């Protein structure tokens, strides 16, 4: 089973939920953890895996053979991403814009374009005790996260459970991270921003036909929370856990310590969450 942890808004507690869930469930079943927030991967700060390998992840980019090129301009016309510009005797390649579709090389009548690879980030694998761990790190300055997320997801192996820590938002990197999952946990907070962005995430789950449930973090039981509760009721999406605002939890988080490993009460909460997801997913199927 593959569970993704996502949220529209950043900083609501995705990594907290994902890492703690991994730690409590790994006591019983074989767990693989994938940090797909490749722009700002943080899970390693909490799971502290021993990283055993690092491999660059590359995307293909065109290279023009000046001997063969006759500057016909077809490659620039074919490129849907404006990554090529052809002048009288020059071809400019904007590598950052290239999506690696291979169109320019395929259609060049002179066979003057071949593809080379350009690294955009790093894929690191390791283990945090019994948890198998993989994350991607996008190189600062690189724009395209999805190819790296795809590479991280290609490491999915037959564990009892794979947990995916997704990036925030609702656009293409999140889609890449969520596709193929069986269930998605949405983490939110009881503020107007939290509710607004939860609605975006719920809409995304519908589009992906993905069952899911909600975790409310920093719950104070106040007004912001009522509107989230009634929103979830209307959308028929279960609230699986309310994490009470807890100074000790915040302080452990600040220091990179997972709550489940230090506070037995929180360990219980996350174990309960794990049981509910497995049940809810079974029901949804």
């Amino acid at each position, binding site marked *: 089973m593959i569970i993704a942890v996502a949220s*529209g*808004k*950043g*900083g*609501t507690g995705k*990594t907290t939920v994902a890492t703690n869930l991994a730690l409590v469930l790994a006591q019983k079943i074989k767990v693989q953890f994938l940090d797909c*927030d490749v*722009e*700002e991967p*943080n899970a390693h*700060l909490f799971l502290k895996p021993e990283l055993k390998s690092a491999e660059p992840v590359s995307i*293909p980019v065109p290279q023009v053979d000046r001997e063969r090129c006759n500057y016909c301009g077809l490659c620039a016309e*074919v490129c*849907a*991403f404006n990554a090529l510009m052809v002048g009288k005797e020059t071809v400019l390649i904007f590598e950052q814009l290239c*999506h*690696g*579709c*291979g*169109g320019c090389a*395929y*259609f060049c009548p002179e066979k003057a374009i071949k593809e080379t690879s350009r690294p955009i980030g790093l894929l690191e694998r390791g283990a945090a005790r019994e948890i198998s761990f993989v994350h991607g790190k*996008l190189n*600062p*300055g*690189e*724009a*395209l*996260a999805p190819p790296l997320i795809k590479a991280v997801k290609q490491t999915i192996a037959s564990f009892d459970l794979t947990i995916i820590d997704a*990036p*925030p*938002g*609702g*656009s*293409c*990197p*999140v*889609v890449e991270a969520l*596709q193929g999952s069986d269930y998605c946990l949405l983490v939110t*907070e009881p*503020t*107007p*921003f939290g509710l*607004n*962005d939860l609605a*975006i995430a719920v*809409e*995304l789950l519908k*589009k*992906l036909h993905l069952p899911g449930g909600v975790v409310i973090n920093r719950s104070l039981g*106040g*007004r*912001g929370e009522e509107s989230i509760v009634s929103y979830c009721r209307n959308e028929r999406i279960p609230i699986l856990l309310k994490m009470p605002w807890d100074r000790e939890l*915040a*302080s452990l*988080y*600040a*220091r*990179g310590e997972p709550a489940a490993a230090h506070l037995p009460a929180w360990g219980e909460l996350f174990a309960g969450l794990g049981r509910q997801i497995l049940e809810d997913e079974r029901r949804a199927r």
Partner: protein
Amino acid sequence: MEEIVVISGKGGTGKTTLTASFAVLAGGEAVMVDADVDAANLSLVLTPQQLESHPFIASRRAVLYRERCTECALCRELCRFDAISESYQVDPLSCEGCTVCSRACPEEAIVMAEVVSGHWFLSETPYGKLIHARLEVAEENSGKLVTLLRNRARELAAAEEKKYLLIDGPPGIGCPVIASLSGAARALIVTEPTVAGLHDLQRVLAVCRHFEVPAAVCINRCDLDKDNARAIEAYCNEESVKVAAKIPFYREVTEALVQGKPVVSYTRGPAAGDIVNLWQSISANGC
């Protein structure tokens, strides 16, 4: 006109909360941009009245006509995004609109259709004009949309002779962040005293350096973990990056957020004072 972009790397550190107050403090001298087009929140605080709404069309998607298709599989072989299934269905979520399949198809069975990926808006707020957008879920081209918003806002700020362009940036370091940042006069990086805050600050600062945008740092909720706050300050010193403010945790900030109001409009207390000082520091002195 000066472009000031507020970013953070890590989400949820307080970008929008600060930008909303800066909008008030700029005293009508700014045009605001919400560049977090995935999950736009600035409009929840600035009470905008929408003046204009425009569709955002930036990409095309393959549409395959089965009646012309001979299942030769060329499109499936060429597609790098695995967007065409064994049964010759195009997965709109995987298609990146590269047009390779449509150009290559010997039967001309694939055409490219334009996609409305979202909408962008021009709105009036009590503090000046706001340019914002809503990218549809699961869409691409957030970077292009941010570039469009910034270009419109620049034109507007120039036409109205405003002093500032205030950009509320998205989290992360990828394409919408780069589109928010490149060419800006300066960036304010909002971080928090956690190991994740420091880690993400280092990465987003590397992006600022890559695009040669000078940056200053605000440590928000700085009293929540003194060791990490010190570590961030030490890091900034080492990197010769100015720490423009250290703002402790204030209950009023959360209350203002729950009320949907800019902090400086909600309270005149110390929280507002700290934000005023930060605004003076970044608007006057630069980085």
